[in-house]
Each structure stands twice: as C-alpha cells, then as structure tokens.
C-alpha cells in the first residue's frame, strides 16, 4: 500500500491490488481515497495481446491470398489490407476497453468512466438523489453464473420501486472478491449519505 504524505496531516491513500476476471485474465484494481466522502476505483483490463492480433491478421491475409490465387485480381490484396487496418482501428476505438473507473462522491453522485484503447472516454454520471442502493447481483452469462455489481435507481412514481438497474464494470467482469472490496467502500459512503440526508 502506498501513502502520499505531503506537508499536512492525513495521508491521501492510493492502493493497488491484483484480481482476476471471470475468464481468468489478470485485472488490477487501483483505489484512491481522496476524502472521507470521495473515493475512486479504477479497474484495468488486460491489454490487447500481440499474439491474437498476429493470428487474426495472418488468417485474414491468408484467406485474401487464397482468393487472389483463384481470381488473379490484385484488388483483393489491397482490400484485405484496408479491411485489416479499418477493422483494427474500429476495434480499438469502439470495442476494446482499457480501463473502467467508478468515482463516488458523497453529496453529488456516482460517475462511471470507460476509457477505450484509442483514448476515447465515455462517461455516465448518476445523481445521488436517483440512487437507491448499490448491490451485488447474480446473473446467468452464457454457460456461467457470475456476480456483478450494480446501481439501483429510484422510481420517481413509486417510492419503494426500482426504475432501472445499471451494471458497473461491465467489460472488465471482475470476480466476487474484487466486487466485495468495492461494495464495502461504496456502502460506507452511502451510509454516510443516508445519515446526512435524514438529519437536516
């Protein structure tokens, strides 16, 4: 655990731990405690591996070469190169998520950011007034049963109802041990928030 100690009293805590996701890949969870009412959790997914990239490129080019030997048209080869480049750019910009961050601020709300491999960031912010609770839920995913952390939103019409379930860390899919850590920290802050909201 690393603690920063600038000239002053309380340390700003930063902490990094290693977990695994549902298919066994390695995930790194970084926790930052900015203040008793503000915490950030940053989950880094495994990077794009050179092996899979080479495999896909070789397959596409072999197929293109096979077609070329059948048709004797050199446009097929240039088209294959084009497709590979565009496909890689599209994959990095729209599909491959590098890091997922959850920022929870006591009186304001919860913010979820996904950063893609090309640098694009997509952010969603949910105000604290709409958040009912954060829970760990079970789901059937393909042939597995997995646990996932989700935010329950209040229903404006019905006071005890839930209008939406927003899953968190959707593409990283960490296992239960990582989720329990995040869950405990979030519940501390939510408890604080509920205490302040009931005592005006």
């Amino acid at each position, binding site marked *: 655990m690393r603690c920063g100690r600038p000239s002053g009293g*309380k340390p700003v805590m930063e902490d990094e731990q290693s977990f695994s996701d549902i298919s066994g890949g390695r995930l790194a969870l970084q926790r930052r405690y900015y203040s008793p009412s503000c915490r950030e959790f940053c989950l880094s997914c495994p990077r794009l591996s050179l092996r899979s990239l080479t495999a896909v490129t070789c397959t596409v080019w072999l197929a293109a070469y096979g077609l070329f030997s059948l048709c004797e048209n050199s446009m097929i080869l240039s088209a294959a190169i084009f497709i590979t480049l565009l496909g890689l750019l599209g994959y990095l910009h729209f599909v491959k998520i590098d890091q997922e961050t959850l920022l929870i601020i006591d009186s304001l709300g919860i913010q979820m950011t996904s950063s893609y491999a090309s640098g694009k960031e997509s*952010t969603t912010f949910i105000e604290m007034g709409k958040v009912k609770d954060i829970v760990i839920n079970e789901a059937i995913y393909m042939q597995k049963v997995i646990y996932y952390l989700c935010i329950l939103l209040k229903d404006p019409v019905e006071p005890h109802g839930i209008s939406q379930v927003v899953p968190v860390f959707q593409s990283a899919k960490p296992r239960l041990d990582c989720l329990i850590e995040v869950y405990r920290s979030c519940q501390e802050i939510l408890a604080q928030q509920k205490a302040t909201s009931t005592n005006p």
Partner: protein
Amino acid sequence: MVLTAFFPTCCASADSGLLVGRWVPEQSCAVVLAVVHFPFIPIQVKQLLDQVRQDSQVGVAVLGTWCHCRQEPEESLGRFLEGLAAVFPHEPWLRLCRERGSMFWSCEATHRQAPGAPGEDQVTLIFYDQRQVLLSQLHPPAVPPDRQVGADPASTGGLAAVFHTVARSEALFRSDRFDEGPVRLSHWQSEGVEASILAELAKRASGPVCLLLASLLSLVSAVGACRVFKLWPLSFLGSKLSTCEQLRHRLEHLRLIFSTKKAENPAQLMRKANMVASVLLDVALGLLLLSWLHGRSRIGHLADALVPVADHVAEELQHLLQWLMGAPAGLKMNRALDQVLGRFFLYHIHLWISYIHLMSPFVEHILWHVGLSACLGLTVALSLLSDIVALLTFHIYCFYVYGARLYRLKIHGLSSLWRLFRGKKWNALRRRVDSCSYDLDQLFIGTLLFTILLFLLPTTALYYLVFTLLRLLVVAAQGLIHLLVDLINSLPLYSLGLRLCRPYRLAAGVKFRVLEHEARRPLCLLMQINPLPYSRVVHTYRLPGCGCHPQHSWGSLCRRLFSGELIYPWRQRSDKQD
C-alpha cells in the same frame, strides 16, 4: 454536514470581494455567480441584487467573501471581511481564500444560528465554466418552471438547478468592467460583453424579410388552395403524385421558417434552424444536379436513351409473355386460357409502344423543363423521377391489376364452390359458415364449375405471380427513391453541426474530474459538460418526414398477396382510403 459550492473558473483570478449567487437549501449547495469587488457601498449592492432578483426570478444574495491574497496576508482585510458578515446576513456564510503561491484553496462555511454550537461544515468546491453552462441545454430538459412572480425555480432537482440558475441570471452578467456603474462585478462577461455584428444585422433585417416572404408564401398557398384544384382529375392527381406531396411539405417548412412569430422555446428554435439547413442543402444539391444535367447536353443524351430503353422494356415483356404462352419452366398450361390472356396482354403492350413512339419528339423538351425543377431542390427532382418511373411502368401496374382481379375472382369462386362441395354455405347475415342442403342440379353444376376453376387455377396463378413480382420490383425502386427523399427531409443538419463544432451546447449530463488533492484541504472537482451522443441528437431533433412508411407488416402483406387483394405499400400522409 457536507456543503457543495459551485465556483466559476473565470473568477479564480479575480481580486478579493464578495461572493454573489444563489443558495439551494434542499441540496445544501451554493452556486456562485459573480464577485463584487471593493470598494462598494452596501446599499448599492443590495439595490443591484433586488433588481436582478426582480428581472430574473432567481433568488440571488450575498453568499460570503472571497479573498485572493496577492501580497502578504493583511490583518485588517481579515477583520474587515468578518465585519461584512454582519452587513449581509446569510446562512451559511462562505469564506473562500486563495493564498499566494499555492494552488490549493481553503474554504469554510459557518452557521451562526444553527441549533447547538455554531459549527463549521465541510465544503466541496466544484469549478464550472460559466459560459458553457450558460449556453448549454440539458437533454432531457427538466420541466421548465413557470414564469410567475414568486415561483421558485428550485423545483428542478440536482444539477438541473445549477444550470437553470446560471441560465436565468443573464441580468447579472450584463455589465462589464468598462461600465461606469456603482458596483464592479467579475463574471464571464466582465472582460467585455459578447456580441456579433452579423447576428445583430441579421436580427434587424429578419423582421421585414420575414414579413415579405410570409406574404409571398401565403399568396402561393392561396393559389394552391383555390377551387380549381379541388375538382376531380386534379385533386386525384395531386394526391397520387409524390411531387405534389413533396412540394406541399416544403411549402409547410418554408411557412414555418418565415413566420413572424418568435420561437417560444429552444426546441422550436432548433427545429427552425434544422429546417433552414435542410432547405439550403436541398437547394444546393439541386443546383449541383442542374448544372450537371444542363452541361454538355446531357439532357439530349438522356432523352435519346429514354425511348430505346422503354422499347427494350416492352420487348422484354413481350418475350416474357411468349414464354408464358409456351411451357414456362416446364409447367403445362391450359392452352386456351393461356392464349387468351397472352394475346390480351400483348395487345396492351402494342398500344403502349405506339404511345411511347407518339411521345418521342416531345421527350427532350419535357425533360429539359423537368430538369429545371431541380432548382427547387434535389428532393423535388427525386420525387419527379419517382413519378416518371411510375408513369413509364404504368403498363406493368395495369397488368398487375388485371392479374390480381382475375386471380381474386377465381379464389373467391373456388372458396364458395368448395363450401358447396362440402354441403355448407356462407351466411352473410350471421357472418359465419352454415350447413345447407342443396338440390342435385345445384350440386352437379357447382361441382362442375369447381373442377373447371380448379384446373384453370395454375395458369391464372402463374400470370398473377409474374406480374406481382414485376410490380414489387417497381415498388422497391420507388421505395428507395422515397427513402432518399425522406433522409434529406428529416436529417437535422444544424443539430449535427452544433454537436460537432460546439459540443457543450447539447448536453447529456455532466462529468466530474478530481483536481490536485491535498489532505486537509477541501475537495476540488472540475465539472465539465458531457455532450450528447450523435445517435441521440438525430433521434431527438429529427424533422417529421413525409410520413411515407410501409403500412403493412410483412405477415399481412404476404396474406394480402396470397388472397389477391391489391396492395398499396406506401401510404401517403393525406391518403384517407383504406
């Protein structure tokens, strides 16, 4: 208790003074709008705040003090600032301080009259860009409060309240530092009020221009609504031709753009702007098409190619009919019926070819004048193209109708005689099938007719199938053209351009970033606008199209085709028949 304070980034380098803004008690949040600098007379500050409160219906008040120490901190300034808390009473009283040479701030909030001991609250500072928050619109828009005296705009919750407060406080931002007013303010416009010469000129000129064009358009619509067009042939043509529909649609758009009524809310303004952009793009593309058509005598080439193409289509149809009259795909047809139907359709094609040849000297002139219509817009030219395709394939439509009617007659006869064969009949009164005892003669003739119809069914069905497929091909081609027209009509270009160039104007929400944090200092966050994704921009602001969408689902379409009913796949907006 945690208190949030929203502070504009433009005031971070301002001199010391008073913080002016709005306090939202439900969320314990203070929105700082401006800083009032020394020297000032408290009475004048109070007068200014009263006036702003009246103009904008926003409860602005003095929230606290702002201390920016450029030199060594002064003792007297500190005591002076504390004395101000007595002059402008406000609960809680904020004290923001920025020290020289440090990028960290200190922030305290004190309650004087809190029950129990007067205490200090924890403050979270959130920096926001005042200009961006002022100009942006939240989607979905929070319910706008009514503009009534005393109505509290705090009924909107959360961050929407912050946006509303900043947007409504325009009265506070009107003076800049070059004004000679009694009170000196610092806000986003204090370096000089923003304005554009072109925008002001356009505003002044738009009044008379709109009046003139609105009167012209009302004249055009009066001409279009006169009684001549309500008589039967013209009204029928007007409802069937897609060109008339498109022209009516565009006229509606233009009337809306040049109406002299001001837009009531931002959504209407965006709608008008999108319509203007759509009309401009349409006319630009149309002029491009016009210049392409009229250059290098392309119209002549087109006209020369048109008649041989129509001839070729007619010849191919003749070949098809000869094929059907023989043994199509190895099927054995009923000779007599085959010959009758085939000769009937062949005669029609002969008439059609003669008609085309009669028209051929005039085709070039017609095309030239039609090409001129492209200056009204690409959509008008495309609708005309679709109508020309419909007219040129009119014989296919006629064949389809003949084939469908014949087939439908046959199917009806067959179903009724099948009921007779089984000893039942259709009770029209009770709308159900009842048993019925027939005479022997009736049964005999009925069975005979049933057999005849049944064995003639494959021939009719084949003709029906072939002509329906041709008709569907033509309808698909027309549908593609209509799709393109609809795309140009309904794409919100202005909104897309705004999203590309000024993404903060269309906001889906906000995002926060934690700034450099030091222990024992208040938490500092930066609030930025999260722009709306492009798909939601198109979805929210798309203009209503012509209303030409397929009226049947695939299932009902197949059912209608099977029973031989005529299909009208594209429903026009003004079509009242079923």
